């Protein structure tokens, strides 16, 4: 699988790492695949599971199938399995503050939060791999954790934190992460249209990224989608279609006449 990273949009999105799952767009005719980075995407591919970290004795939430993990410094509340980022946010014992976020988090990073409100901290453990759930997890008080905590402490949130979904985001959703070309595409008649196929695949990936990201992003920021241009409503009759001869009133007691 490809490497991936993401940029935080807001502190609450820091706990939705399933949105980091890169989209895969295949062009069936051209043996190409393009991985598009969807940093606005909020989609859980599986119900979130909750376990307990045996080392730090902390609650542990595993998100998505490319599991980033959120460790909570308090027992997780009982309840049904978390299914989306809103459930996750509701379950947090402490509110997330911008300083809990890192501007960039790579695979294997862990966000942890202490039990006291407002004392959350961001811990980076780059040695964790997102599919390796058997590796013993280091305690949060290691030297590396302290160093990373200090490094993350003074970091300001990414500029995109307060940026709404403007037209530039729509034009350029995400970052192109990976491009794969099958060996068979280099031989025969395929090679003549390989360049065009790459362009088509990249555009398709961006279009797909935009289509999937924008509604979620608008939802996240509480922004209403732009009204779609609709046809003339039925009650706006054109002048030619108005019936001036019959005496039918639209509604009894309408009060307009």
């Amino acid at each position, binding site marked *: 699988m490809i490497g991936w990273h993401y940029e935080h949009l807001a502190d609450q999105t820091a706990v939705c790492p399933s949105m980091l799952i890169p989209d895969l767009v295949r062009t069936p005719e051209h043996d190409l695949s393009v991985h598009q980075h969807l940093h606005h995407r909020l989609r859980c591919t599986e119900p979130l599971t909750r376990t307990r970290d045996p080392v730090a004795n902390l609650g542990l939430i595993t998100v998505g199938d490319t599991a980033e993990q959120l460790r909570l410094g308090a027992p997780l509340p009982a309840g049904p399995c978390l299914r989306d980022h809103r459930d996750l946010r509701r379950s947090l014992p402490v509110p997330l503050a911008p300083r809990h976020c890192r501007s960039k988090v790579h695979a294997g990073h862990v966000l942890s939060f202490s039990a006291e409100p407002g004392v959350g901290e961001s811990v980076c453990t780059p040695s964790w791999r997102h599919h390796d759930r058997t590796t013993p997890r280091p305690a949060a008080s290691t030297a590396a954790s302290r160093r990373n905590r200090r490094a993350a402490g003074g970091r300001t949130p990414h500029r995109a934190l307060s940026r709404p979904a403007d037209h530039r985001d729509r*034009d*350029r959703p995400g*970052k*192109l992460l*990976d*491009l*794969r*070309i*099958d*060996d*068979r*595409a*280099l*031989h025969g008649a395929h*090679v*003549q249209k*390989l*360049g*065009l196929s*790459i*362009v088509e695949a*990249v*555009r398709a990936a961006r279009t797909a990224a935009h289509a999937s990201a924008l509604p979620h992003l608008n939802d996240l920021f509480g922004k209403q989608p732009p009204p779609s241009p609709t046809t003339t409503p039925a009650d706006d009759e054109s002048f030619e279609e108005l019936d001036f001869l019959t005496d039918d009133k639209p509604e009894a007691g309408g009060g307009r006449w």
Partner: protein
Amino acid sequence: MNSEERLYHLAKEIDARVAAVEHAAKTGESLPLVLDIGANLGTVAVDGLGGLVSVDLDQNAVAAQTGASLAGHVLRAITNAESATATRRKNMLDDAARETR
């Protein structure tokens, strides 16, 4: 020069600066950019906003590549071209703002 004249010249200066920056922004967004793909594999072209326009591959050079290596070269060229357009736009805006000072 009385105060009205000073204000007039100041407004003219501001207008000139705004016009120069707007012109630079339009130019930066409309000029395409062509970059070579590594290993003489061809060129990639992006529009002024970094959108991919075309990938022209040298078929003879491509024949010596594997799919993975070609994909790596092309991907690098695309991302380089995208970032190069952003840098160019920024430089053009900075130059326009600086020249009118």
